[in-house]
């Protein structure tokens, strides 16, 4: 975002009153009335859904309108603070472009011709088609793609219906390989929020994590706190990110060579004996094999691969080693980069183990062992056919491999997939190679999308079911497993606008029409939550009033005499060497494999986040759109000059397969290496119904036609595409 000085001289003279939408004028009147003491505001706690961090928020409501959102001080993920996106949640609530009524497609699929329908008609149509699919092909031929809180409603629905073909892009397109890498090493993932104890760290290492631009509220708070308490910061990033600008050591690594750096670090830590031997002896397996397998990974070898001077590799390794165990090796989050991502995550985990940082102050803290009793529910039917959502990948998680479902939908094998139920995710922007997604969709008998906004995938659906925003609905209790166990409530702040309905209502109504009503045995979701609270011995009234309850005496973050860690691996120990991987035919200790580099004239396409947007879903939010209304292609100044491009020009990107982007603004900057370009993810929304962000910026996913599948977890490495830039003609 750019604020140019003296812009007021240009704008202030122009009559711009027309810009103010009707909603804002009402807000102004209300604020005036409040100021005059005519009405009193009410405050309702809930939690945010602008991203997946689930920050506690308190909504200020004046006369039935939300006028302000603040962080909830008792909520561990927000601690009284909201990021720009959380603050901008009102923009979503009052976005005039929201989906308002159920819509039924009347043109060809993808043409975007819809007619309004009643809920009864739309739900009836969905149920009828789902029943037909079940009858003709079996329930396994319906697949569910989901993300975030809608999962709590639609996963039970589709499970009751009889399918286990579930795909969550959060696995195969995001943190899947990371979780698998940590599970193979420690027996569990690093958690979400990641259990990084950065507040107490002496050294923080970020590898490809751009915290600050990646606005994970409490984690950024901890990051800043740790750094200002004096933690040394090492940032490995080919781009000079906001985090890199705070670092003592910025390592602008050649993209795709991170594993070489990690193995060199591991080698130095071992050869200079900076590892925590008593810890390793007690908790780990396979040290000797590890030592031998990394012995050739010298700093000089790594320098050739990574483009980082050997001396700097040694210096940073010592900085890490000498400060152990109070070192956070950040596990990262979006880890689907190059197709060997489980092994890279393994290297991160192994490094953490060598330093003795797992379960130690300043490293990775241990999750609370407490949990809430699970509510009993009717068991779901056993599927008749083997689910195909693992794609045959040996370590694919329960969240499923999205693109395996897509592939099966296209091929019809091992059995046909005839219906997609999509909620909480915009598949067109989430999955690589959009051609395949479009082809798969063309094979379907039914595509249903539940969404708040008319996003790309929604506008391809046969039936669109408009969900109300998070400020208008109940959702499942959020159980937080950080240092302590916590429970948060999402409750409606205002009544649903238009004809939109909460996800739970949509699921329940559909269940009725599918003769599955007995799986939803409550009247309202609030009833369900109340029952859950009473089972767990939590006061619903307190929860309603405070928004979040932290269960006392549930924290045991560090290893002590009577708080010993348990590792749910095959050996019950930290596995530096993984026999399980060996058995399945993979490297038991990570081995560096060189990846193709961009050919002459091409740049590697990388992508990331903006602090004011969550993927594509916020691009049309008026408040956030105002701050960042199109993405830019970052390119090194020298390269830009050579191509005759300067800041503010528009360019078109063409990838190695000849796929072109829409026009995108050029950001010629010193802040990036010469062999790559960078885009903020999620732009160039196609639906014209998104009146602000439609066709703004360039879509990174459109250019990601190739992807490198990780053979261990089935996740899709998406930083393997190369692009050329051309000035817009």
């Amino acid at each position, binding site marked *: 975002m750019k604020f140019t000085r003296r812009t007021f001289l240009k704008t202030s003279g122009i009559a711009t009153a027309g810009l103010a939408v009707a909603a804002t004028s009402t807000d*102004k009147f209300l604020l005036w009335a409040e100021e005059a003491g005519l009405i009193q505001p009410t405050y309702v706690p809930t939690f945010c859904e602008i991203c997946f961090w689930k920050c506690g928020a308190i909504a200020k409501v004046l006369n039935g309108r939300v*006028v302000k959102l603040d962080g909830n001080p008792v909520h561990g993920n927000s601690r009284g*603070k909201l990021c*720009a996106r959380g603050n901008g949640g009102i923009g979503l609530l009052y976005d005039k472009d929201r989906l308002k009524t159920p819509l039924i497609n009347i043109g060809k699929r993808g043409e975007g011709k819809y007619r309004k329908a009643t809920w009864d008609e739309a739900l009836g149509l969905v149920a009828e088609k789902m029943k037909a699919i079940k009858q003709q092909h079996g329930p396994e031929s319906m697949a569910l793609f989901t993300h975030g809180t809608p999962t709590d409603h639609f996963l039970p629905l589709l499970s009751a219906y009889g399918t286990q073909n579930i795909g969550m892009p959060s696995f195969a397109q995001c943190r899947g390989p990371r979780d698998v890498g940590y599970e193979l090493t420690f027996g569990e993932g690093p958690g979400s929020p990641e259990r990084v104890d950065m507040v107490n760290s002496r050294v923080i290492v970020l590898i490809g994590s751009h915290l600050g631009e990646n606005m994970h509220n409490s984690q*950024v708070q901890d990051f800043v706190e740790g750094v200002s308490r004096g933690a040394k910061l090492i940032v490995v990033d080919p781009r000079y990110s906001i985090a890199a*600008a705070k670092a003592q050591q910025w390592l*602008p690594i050649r993209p795709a060579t991170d594993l070489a750096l990690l193995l060199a670090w591991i080698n130095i830590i071992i050869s200079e004996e900076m590892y925590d031997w008593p810890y390793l002896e007690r908790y780990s397996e396979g040290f000797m094999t590890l030592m031998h397998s990394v012995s050739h990974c010298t700093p000089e070898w790594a320098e050739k691969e990574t483009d980082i001077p050997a001396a700097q590799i040694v210096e940073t390794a010592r900085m890490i080693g000498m400060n152990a165990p109070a070192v956070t090796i950040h596990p990262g989050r979006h880890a689907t980069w190059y197709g060997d991502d489980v092994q890279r995550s393994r290297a991160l985990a192994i490094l953490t183990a060598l330093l003795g940082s797992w379960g130690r102050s300043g490293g990775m803290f241990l999750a609370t062992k407490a949990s809430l009793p699970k509510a009993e529910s009717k068991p779901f039917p056993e599927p008749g056919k083997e689910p195909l959502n693992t794609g045959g990948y040996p370590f694919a998680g329960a969240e499923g491999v999205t693109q395996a479902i897509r592939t099966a939908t296209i091929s019809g094998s091992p059995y046909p997939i005839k219906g997609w139920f999509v909620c909480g995710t915009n598949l067109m922007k989430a999955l690589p190679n959009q051609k395949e997604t479009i082809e798969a969709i063309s094979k379907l008998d039914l595509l249903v999308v539940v969404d708040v906004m008319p996003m790309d995938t929604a506008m391809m659906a046969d039936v669109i079911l408009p969900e109300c925003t998070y400020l208008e609905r109940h959702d499942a209790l959020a159980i937080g497993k950080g240092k302590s166990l916590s429970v948060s409530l999402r409750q409606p702040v205002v009544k649903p606008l238009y004809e939109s309905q909460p996800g739970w209502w949509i699921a329940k109504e559909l269940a009725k029409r599918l003769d599955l009503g007995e799986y939803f045995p409550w009247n309202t979701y609030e009833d369900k939550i109340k029952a859950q609270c009473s089972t767990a011995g939590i006061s619903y009234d307190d929860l309603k009033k405070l928004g979040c309850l932290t269960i006392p005496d549930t924290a045991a973050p560090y290893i002590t005499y009577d708080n010993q860690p348990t590792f749910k691996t095959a050996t019950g120990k930290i596995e530096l060497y993984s026999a399980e991987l060996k058995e399945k035919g993979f490297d038991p200790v990570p081995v560096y494999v060189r990846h193709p580099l961009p050919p002459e004239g091409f740049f590697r396409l990388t992508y990331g986040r903006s602090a004011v947007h969550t993927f594509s879903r916020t691009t049309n939010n008026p408040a956030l759109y105002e701050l960042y209304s199109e993405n830019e292609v970052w390119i*090194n100044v020298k390269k830009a000059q050579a191509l005759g491009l300067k800041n503010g020009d528009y360019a078109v990107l063409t990838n190695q397969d000849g796929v072109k982007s829409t026009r995108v603004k050029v950001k010629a*900057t010193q802040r*990036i290496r010469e062999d790559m370009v960078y885009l903020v993810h999620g732009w160039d929304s196609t639906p014209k119904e998104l009146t602000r962000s439609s066709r703004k910026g360039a879509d990174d996913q459109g250019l990601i036609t190739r992807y490198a599948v990780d053979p261990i977890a089935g996740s899709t490495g998406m930083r393997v595409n190369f692009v050329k830039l051309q000035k817009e003609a």
Partner: protein
Amino acid sequence: MPKYAMVIDQRRCVACMACVIACKNENEVPPEQYRTRVLEMVEGEFPLLRMELRSELCNHCDNPPCVYNCPTGASYKRTADGIVLLRKNRCVGCKACVAACPYDARYINHEKGFADKCTFCDHRLKEGKEPACVATCIGKSRIFGDLDDPKSPVRIALRSADSTVLLEGAGTRPRVYYIKKFSKPE
């Protein structure tokens, strides 16, 4: 009587823009206008770079040019706490203050016509709350309090590190202090 001031600890800023949106929501700032902003400035050549992230807002100067240049007496500095405010009903929208302010802190509110600006969230202070930008600041980079109170967060912050003000030479005597211009250790 309090002497309100703000400290911006630039080392703690990540340019997340939470302050900008919180301010706009709190103070009904019209679209495309801002009472506060975050500037991102980079110096150097790859890979030897440094970056400054700087939040800017009204400096609530002790020697405020906007007040001196206001022909109608609409702009004033409140004696009780030193906040620079505006009597909206006296403002004629002549832009004298906008031109006089060296910090670009003022704008003509294009919905209401008067010369709008940061008030340190005067209305929230009355309720015992911090300004909206401070309350939501993810990095705790924005610090607010009473300069006369040795225990206030601003005094603690100013004691702990060296600070500067913007355009010191302009003689405006700002009440917004900046800790450490550049993010890298000097």
